[in-house]
């Protein structure tokens, strides 16, 4: 997941840490959030709503979000 986020933001994967805030710490904007949601949707093969992005605030949230959907 850190690799996915780093690739989307075009930053070094080593600089992506679990507790970081996607928006404030990593500079993710609304478009990049949608790109991340799209990537997750494709990789998990599930439909996601735009509102799902609201609950993803940190890198760790992203991991938990994926784990929860994969467990369904």
């Amino acid at each position, binding site marked *: 997941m850190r690799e996915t986020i780093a690739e989307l933001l075009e930053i070094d994967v080593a600089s992506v840490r679990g507790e970081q805030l996607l928006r404030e710490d990593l500079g993710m904007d609304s478009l990049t959030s*949608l*790109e991340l949601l799209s990537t997750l949707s494709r990789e998990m093969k599930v439909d996601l709503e735009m509102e799902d992005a609201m609950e993803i605030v940190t890198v760790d949230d992203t991991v938990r979000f994926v784990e929860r959907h994969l467990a369904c």
Partner: protein
Amino acid sequence: MKRALVIGATGFLGLNVVDALQARGVAVRATWRKKSITVFAQKRRPEWRLAELDDLAAMEDAMRGCDVVFFAAGHYPRYSLDARAAIERGRADVRSVCTAAMRAEVPRVVYTSSIGTLDGSVEGPVNEDDRTPEPPVQSVYRATKWAMEEEVDVALARGLDVVTILPGACLGPWDVRLGTTGVLVALLNHALPWWVDGVVNVADVRDVANAHVAAAEMAPRGARYCFGGHATTMRTLFEELCARWALPFPAEELDVRSARERADAEEREAAPRRGRVPMPRELVDLVTWGRRVDSSRAALELGVVARDHGTTLEDAQRWLERMGHVPKTLPNTMPTTVPETMRASRAEGASDEVDERGRSSATRARDDRGAVGDRRRVGAG
């Protein structure tokens, strides 16, 4: 038409083209790129193909078996800072897609161009026949779109069946990356720092999508169709929007030269961080190009007419609310008259009619006073 490929299906127009096709029972194949926002298109269940525009083999493979290819992903320069690069990229995109279409023996390509390729020097409203013979100067956007049409002409000469749609400034649902709608967002958030007057042709993106599908089915080879939608002036549009949503009128109106300079400066500042500006240079260029567009050929031959302008604005607002770009508490008063505060901002009580250069009455009055280079405040806020 049984199966169609939509290039650009994850974008604003493309999503609406997919909807228009599926409403007619057409099976949709869609290309995507690694950074595409696919989350909206995914719900439409297209047959996905990963293909970059410059990947000829992947494009050709995606096109095989399709009756029509909708090319709604031509280069749209985000910034008007590097004309040469934008034109080269635009030409390369069109060449690549047209070459792949010929190799895949696609029966028809529907290409999305822009009214910005039309000639601004002719008298009266412009239509499809008013192509500017020389590349437009002073506008990266218009020059890029003009060059891309030239590449379409080359493909036509080589035997490809292409029809071209020239839309105005599109508004409506599914504007994911905020094109023209960005100025609406800025206005609704009281964050439009300045503006410039001129003619704006506001098209509902769903009508434009319907025109694409109708052109695929009915247009003769090589045909071109303008779809300008609702022609108005920027001033009148802002008055309407401010009245509808009880907004303050944007204060600072610039003349053409100042608007170009300001847009260029703001884009230079925004580009390194990939930011968007409220009034991008291409919008300044389109507005100050300022021609009313005659869309009667699309109405007569394709049967597509512009829907009610108010519906377009309301649906655009709903989309922006859903995306969180504007507050959900906007009043929708829909008054039938312009409030006094805004009316007072007009020059000499003149009408909304535009002249042969596309200038509204207030802009004419200012230009006639020789105010080029002058910034002034209008409106009461």
